[in-house]
């Protein structure tokens, strides 16, 4: 597992792996991870802030703050803390060009 992630796994590590892509990079997570857990075990942030210089990595983890939105190469925007990761997901930390 990548060591540059933000999160540290403490338990429940014997779950089947799930492969996904983050900004075109191949990454690995575990079945049952949320998108937030999956991404932050491979990166320090989920996305860039639209209003400031800082990255964002979620805040409430309960669907209330909307800090954790991410984009998919195709399909709708997702809330990373409350969406399970799925095999083959292609996630992006910045909006695709056609996003309004």
């Amino acid at each position: 597992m990548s060591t540059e992630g933000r999160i540290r796994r403490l338990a429940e590590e014997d779950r089947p792996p799930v492969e996904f892509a983050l900004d075109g990079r191949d990454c690995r997570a575990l079945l049952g991870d949320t998108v937030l857990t999956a991404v932050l075990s491979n990166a320090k942030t989920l996305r860039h802030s639209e209003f400031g210089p800082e990255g964002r990595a979620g805040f409430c983890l309960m669907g209330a703050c909307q800090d954790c939105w991410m984009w998919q190469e195709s399909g709708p925007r997702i809330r990373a803390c409350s969406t399970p990761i799925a095999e083959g997901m292609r996630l992006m930390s910045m909006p695709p060009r056609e996003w309004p």
Partner: protein
Amino acid sequence: MSERVVIVGAGPAGIRAAEVLTNAGLRPTVVDEGMRSGGQIYRRAPEGFKRAADKLYGSEAKKAQALHACFDRMLAEDRLAYFPLSSVLAIADDGLQVLTADGLQQIAFDRLIIATGATERLAPVPGWESAGVYGLGAMQIALKAQGVALGRRIVLAGSGPLLTLVATQLEAAGAEIAAVLDTSSLAKQLHGLPQMLARPRLVARGMAMRAQLGRRYRAGVRLDRIETSSEGVEAISWTHRGTTHRTECDAVGLGWHLRAETQLAGLAGATFTYDHSFAQWLPKADAMGRAGERLYLAGDGLRIRGADGAEVAGRLAAVACLEDMGLSAPDARADARRMRRLDRFAEGIARAFPWPAEVVRQLPDDAVVCRCESITAGALRDAVDAGGSEANRAKSLSRVGMGRCQGRYCQLAGAEIVAAQANLDVATVGRLRDQAPVRPAPIGAMRSPDHSTRSGRNN
């Protein structure tokens, strides 16, 4: 045909309300945002996770298991209709507009029980917009529901019973806790103690947790700044008895006890008063939770009493609902008595771990208040100077409270700053009106074939 009762929320309050109703032969509908029932404090891990209940819930394992089993039984026996992963966006024409996993649905009701719980109550700390700053509750959710720590070296800061609890839970699971910084002084904590002794065992447990943290726990701290790089948090600086300290860390969990989640209650017609001991606007309700015509509230969304209080409040609200329908209801006197004791304890907690109003009022101009859109305390003060001190007006001028979280995490701090700028008590600047949709809805979701878009009713 019997009346349709809808319960929003499947935490301790919602589950116990459903239990009372199903025992009376009703078939309520339960709408919940979670993947699985249980709510936040008794949140369940996804299917396939294996940690035992005592690992997840510690001393509360039995309660959590009983609650989960209660809901699973009702579900298995098909005694309720259940919509998981579903958010109520709006209330209109006696129906809820609900965003379910399969799109928007209208769910009609005759009576509504709202048990939407709470989020943590947050005060901005300069730098808190950065990656790696989380709510205290988020730290706990990550551990329970995912088995992870949100950092390699964690500082927890704020005040309230969750602070030491989350610290000891994380540490027991193998996370590194660098410091636990309580903004409440020991003197203030003693001030709340007499009422907290309504539940002596909880007080003893709290003291034991604190002892376990040793010198890493400090009371009476001022949080000065979270230092960050583009990657996120690097350290937190804080002052204790006149000395400045700096603790290196890559994650900070913040929280000052809880804030009732009241937007749906407001849309459903509840009215509010500012509660000075809980330092927030709380809905008005009778002792059973009746908050309006056919409207009942229960759990932390009504009053911050914690999980035990939520279970009791859920039962009381359902009893009130049954009585109002003219059906026979179980005897609620024992629960009403229990609630009075829980209320005393809750008041004690509120006193012992207060909202840091003075610090928020003096936040530096460059500190971000609204995390959603990075709006600073200075910009909010300018808006007050330009447009006056009414909360809704300051919100529309400054945009503090208009971001994607809809003010959940900035409105208390925002109101405090507005009040300070206008030299007023925080209660006089008013409460932000509730607006639908209470969760961001995908474009088009608010329009369904037979219902045109409606904004929420204001109270």
